């Protein structure tokens, strides 16, 4: 046998086949030459978290937003309460989709314990989505709006 015992490219090709075909072993013999590739069986990841039998709807959150992926630029509720988009009924809302807001500008109110808490924009940008309706209950860490 002259030169290299093996051809790296062949082995790479075999390895690719092994993986793509989900095999665990390939063995080739020709005369006194032999190549054998082995791949450990893919380790079972933990099974998905089991679903418990729900009585009714399993997680009827006050708003089910927590289940979705949180969009970038989202402003999250710092408390539980009722969200309001305007300072009083009938008044002009603090924000609107497409409108620019400055950092620190009040974007909505959350009423908790009979107190109206001003929720301020954590960063400047444009309001691209409003995720709650005025008068709607919100929970802690619930995304309220997106400022991009």
């Amino acid at each position: 046998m002259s030169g290299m015992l093996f051809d790296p490219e062949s082995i790479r090709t075999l390895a690719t086949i092994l993986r793509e075909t989900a095999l665990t072993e390939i063995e080739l013999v020709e005369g006194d030459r032999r190549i054998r590739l082995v791949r450990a069986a893919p380790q079972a990841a933990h099974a998905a978290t089991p679903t418990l039998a729900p009585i009714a709807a399993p997680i009827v959150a006050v708003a089910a937003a927590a289940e979705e992926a949180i969009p970038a630029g989202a402003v999250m509720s710092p408390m539980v309460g009722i969200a309001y988009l305007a300072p009083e009924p009938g008044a002009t809302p603090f924000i609107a989709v497409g409108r620019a807001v400055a950092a620190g500008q009040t974007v909505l109110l959350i009423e908790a314990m009979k107190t109206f808490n001003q929720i301020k924009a954590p960063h400047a940008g444009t309001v691209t989505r409003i995720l709650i309706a005025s008068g709607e209950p919100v929970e802690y860490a619930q995304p309220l709006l997106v400022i991009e």
Partner: protein
Amino acid sequence: MFQKVLIANRGEIALRIQRACRELGIPTVAVHSTADTDAMHVRLADESVCIGPPSARESYLNMPAILSAAAVTGADAIHPGYGFLSENAKFAEMVEAHGMTFIGPSPAHIRMMGDKIAAKAAMASLGVPLVPGSDGAVLDLDQARAVADRIGYPLLVKAAAGGGGRGMKVAQAADELEEAWTVARTEARTAFGDDAVYIEKYLDRPRHIELQVMADAHGSVVHFGERDCSLQRRHQKLLEEAGSPALTSAERDSLGAVVTAGLRKLGYRNAGTLEFLYQDGQFAFIEMNTRLQVEHPVTEMVCGVDLVREQLRVAAGQALGYEQSDVEFRGHAIECRVTAEDPETFMPTPGRVDVFHAPGGLGVRVDSALYAGYVVPPYYDSMVAKLIVHAPTRPEAIARMRRALGEFAIQGIKTTLPLHRRIMDAPEFVAGDYTIHWLERFVSSV
């Protein structure tokens, strides 16, 4: 009855309360921190509200957040469970101020029993036995000798301003009194700047025995017998029994009569537990817990009563509808508290539960919020399951517990299941022959 109950707790007790509400047809609101989004009490609730970040201070102890959650969901009552806000008089007041019902005693009674000195004074005035001792400070050695003659040895000389074991000396017999007196006063002066001392009977081998009571708003008070909670490690109960292997039913009846008469006079309502030290046939009141206890299931098993259901009914203004003579005690019950801790070092072991398989069959009850795939968060109490058995006699209950512990599989995290298996085989436990000091020695005897 209530329209909707908010459960201001987590873990197995939140699930316990949810179950009682569900069986009464009452919808429940679960509250939870961001660390508990996948918790069982959330997954099985009718509604849930995230009230704060993992820190208990900002979530399960966050009164405004909990009250807001109750307001936005329209709950008309709040059950506090145990721990967290369950014995917080201010929270109970706030709940009532918001027009909701606090499922527990009045704020005044919570406050009274929260002040350990006031609680003892109240109990003394109601005829409930305390630890025998001097009435207040002992001024000189002669007076100390007079007290000692009255209450007997061993006794404790304790700094009135004391705490944490300082300014506290034991006199085993009369010839040790003078030294104990002198040293305790010196320590008290040095440590607290006040050499006032008092004298108490020293209980060297007491059991911890507590009495479960339930009172309605119409003057009915019953007790559901005692629990023996002497198996403790660092003041944490590990295993409880109903009834106590040490108590006669005559002792139970006579203590029960004093306590229920006292609480009736006090106008107490809802569930409560009076804790006693018990030695040589004598009870000494320690404190009263104005809430549901972790170990309430052993009482439920022997009395055939649903204590959480009774709490809900009583809080809704319903009458108990039965009297002391209707309460019957059947068989024996044992509870093992299973914690996510190393069974030898007691280091907490939060993490993912890979396997959870609860024991089943006759006389076996499991109260747990675990499930396979659940991740025990590192932020809260390490208790993850209560295994309770009931059988006609104590030996049969021990045999059943041994069998059930053998079937219980929790894998992925270490738990105290192996320790409980060892306890079931310990001759002192099997004989019922233990005090509050036994477990500590047993654990360190590995």
